[in-house]
């Protein structure tokens, strides 16, 4: 059985016939040809597949493409405004919030979710907010600094 779906990824509409068992992460990587979204654990633990579905974070390895039919999906490739990086991308760069970079797309989208629900989180709240994302390189210290920095930069820009 194939099911027609219409999924908008980073503003671009993809209309495809998919098997119902197709995971959203594979729709993004194979059909939309955007490979920023990673498959790490494939068991909903590591968060490297995190994307936004209608603005809200979700693990795309634990979401079927058919569940996102009609939705607007944002991946790491859709966060920047043209050449201008998103505040989180800027701060992960400035604060060395990444080493190998494998966890980074998911980490940044999970951080996006955190700042959506809490614009000025404490260090503790940042650590809790990123509980579903695993990084095997950084030891997290610089990730926490980066998120804090992005929150402050966003607050300053809004003033």
């Amino acid at each position, binding site marked *: *059985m194939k*099911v027609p779906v219409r999924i908008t990824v980073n503003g671009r509409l993809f209309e495809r016939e998919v*098997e*119902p*068992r197709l*995971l959203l992460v594979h729709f993004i990587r194979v059909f939309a040809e955007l490979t920023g979204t990673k498959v790490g654990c*494939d*068991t*909903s*633990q590591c*968060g490297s597949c*995190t994307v936004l579905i209608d603005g*809200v*974070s*979700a*693990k795309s390895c*634990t*979401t*079927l493409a*058919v*569940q996102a039919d009609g939705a607007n999906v944002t991946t790491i490739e859709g966060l920047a405004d043209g050449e201008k990086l998103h505040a989180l991308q800027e701060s992960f760069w400035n604060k060395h919030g990444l080493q190998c970079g494998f966890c980074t797309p998911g980490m940044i989208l*999970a951080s996006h*979710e*955190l700042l959506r*629900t809490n614009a000025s989180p404490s260090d503790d709240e940042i650590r809790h*907010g990123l*509980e*579903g*994302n695993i990084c095997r390189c950084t030891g997290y210290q610089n990730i926490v600094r980066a998120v804090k920095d992005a929150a402050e930069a966003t607050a300053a820009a809004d003033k």
Partner: protein
Amino acid sequence: MFAADFEYYRAGSVAEAGQLLAAHPGAKLLAGGHSLIPLLKLRLAAPAAVIDIGRIAELRGISTDGDGLRIGALTTHAEIAASDTVKEHAAALAEAASQIGDPAVRNRGTIGGNLAHADPASDLPTVLAALGATMTVKGSGGERTIDAADFFTGMMATSLGDNDLLTAIRVPSAAGRGNAYVKFSHPASRYAVIGVAASIGIGTTGGGWMAKIKGEPKETVCTDVAVAIGGLVPKPLRCSAVEAALKDQAPSEPAFAAAAAAVSGDLGDDLLGDVFASGDYRKAVASVYVQRAIEAAAGRVG
């Protein structure tokens, strides 16, 4: 990992979900997918058909009526955790929902899916057992309600039949009582190693004729004590020994500690354990979590 192939149907209403269930024997309902999709990917489940109920608007939302809270089965953990209505009427439920997994899991997982899945390491079954919730279920024979005590029948087993759809959860008003949920999270999965929910009222006792003659003051005591534990037992367990030990006792640290110690009698010796936390270990720390839960619940009365 890829699931085995299945047919996919999307229900637009509760009535349509019922028709699809009747037309496709053995089909699985899909709500948030955060328990079902992992099972499909591991091929521990391989249904011929999946019926997506995730878009049925009438199954979503939180409201109150005279006797308490009504929560639609598709309401997400994130919505429950953020709801001021839930915090006011059933603080323990909001507290438990806010500790499920991680934010992305809470954005998609639903209360109905959590209860229907009935994982012993889940949080919400324990809370609903302590709060005396009832489940509203729609089956081929119409609508019926099931008490939380009868809903969970064993490890990952409920009294839901093949054609049943859980539509809503009702939580009686906790007016005058305090309630709380305390959890020992598995550090990696964040599922409950131990979870304890407590609901406690505080009232006065004494004042019998002898006390009146002697002019003795009435005593403040714990009333309406309900405590449930999960994580180390196949299904949520009401702790009747703890409840009996605390009832009519003045709320004090020694009374809470003595009541919490009684949990070993409720638990018995045949407990769930794994390589991370054996049954014996869980039993040894259970009383600590029971004490924290009853103290927190008692502290919220008023």
